């Protein structure tokens, strides 16, 4: 396994979505390659940072408008049936 091979599989590697033999090849490469070791760490951290950060606020007025719209729609559909 070379560096390009690791880069192409880094996503499946951090998801645990590779055959055992391929994982072994990657880990053998990582033992002697600082470049790929950092790549794996940083890719994993990238996912963790986004997964753990809620970047979108849910404003109260947006929530109230949704509830009002749905109430109207539910009433409308109930009248129609």
């Amino acid at each position, binding site marked *: 396994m070379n560096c390009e091979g690791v880069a192409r599989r*880094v996503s499946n590697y951090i998801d645990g979505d590779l055959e055992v033999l391929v994982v072994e090849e990657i880990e053998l490469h990582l033992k002697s390659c600082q470049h790929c070791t*950092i790549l794996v760490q*940083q890719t994993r951290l990238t996912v963790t940072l986004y997964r753990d950060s809620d970047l979108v606020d849910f404003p109260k007025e947006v929530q109230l408008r949704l509830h009002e719209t749905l109430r109207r729609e539910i009433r409308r559909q109930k009248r129609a049936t």
Partner: protein
Amino acid sequence: MALYCATLAMHSIQPGLLANLVKTPTLSASNPHRLPSNVAREDEHLLVASAKAGDASAFEELVNRYERKIFRLTMNITRNREDAEDAMQDAFMKAYSHLDRFQEESRFYTWLVRIAANEALMRLRKRRPNQVSLDEPIETENDFIPQQIEDWGPSPEQRFAQTEMRDILRTVIEELAPDFRIVFVLRDVEGLSTEETAEAVGISEAAVKSRLLRARLKLRQKLDRHFRKGVKQ
């Protein structure tokens, strides 16, 4: 109704939920990848059954449970608040109107995500018709393979204040092409499986994996500008 009352009793939930929001079990904020427990799935199933039988309160409870996540999804796809709000409203209205078509082979949440993702994508395509081409194969050049890698130094998540980190993450994800952003958001932010993401976006599982790889590497590369050792001490 009896079924729904049993569900309410299980969680000590009062009716009239839209007016009086009740916190209910959702995906863990600290670990959104973890799916709700079987108990939560059972509960969702009961709520859906009641809503299908015409109990509007049961549907309202489902809205309360997922509205925040659905808005986050539509915002993450459209990057436009007005479009995101419209997409969210239409998604819930369509879900309500077409509840009888929901087959319960998948989770209600996954079904809802698929509707919301489609609503958000339609609006994104209208605004930026040349930037979203989900049906076209992605080029196969190797430009996403990183050539140079620099250490980010000790834990960037501790070097930056929380608000500063949020700004960086927001800026960086907005720069990502929509094709990649959608797959990344569904898989890594909303915690859908590869199969569920493929179903929601209407592409193959292989395409999901390929786009996820590129999205993650692109984001890593863009974060590198901010996190490289020495950028901020």
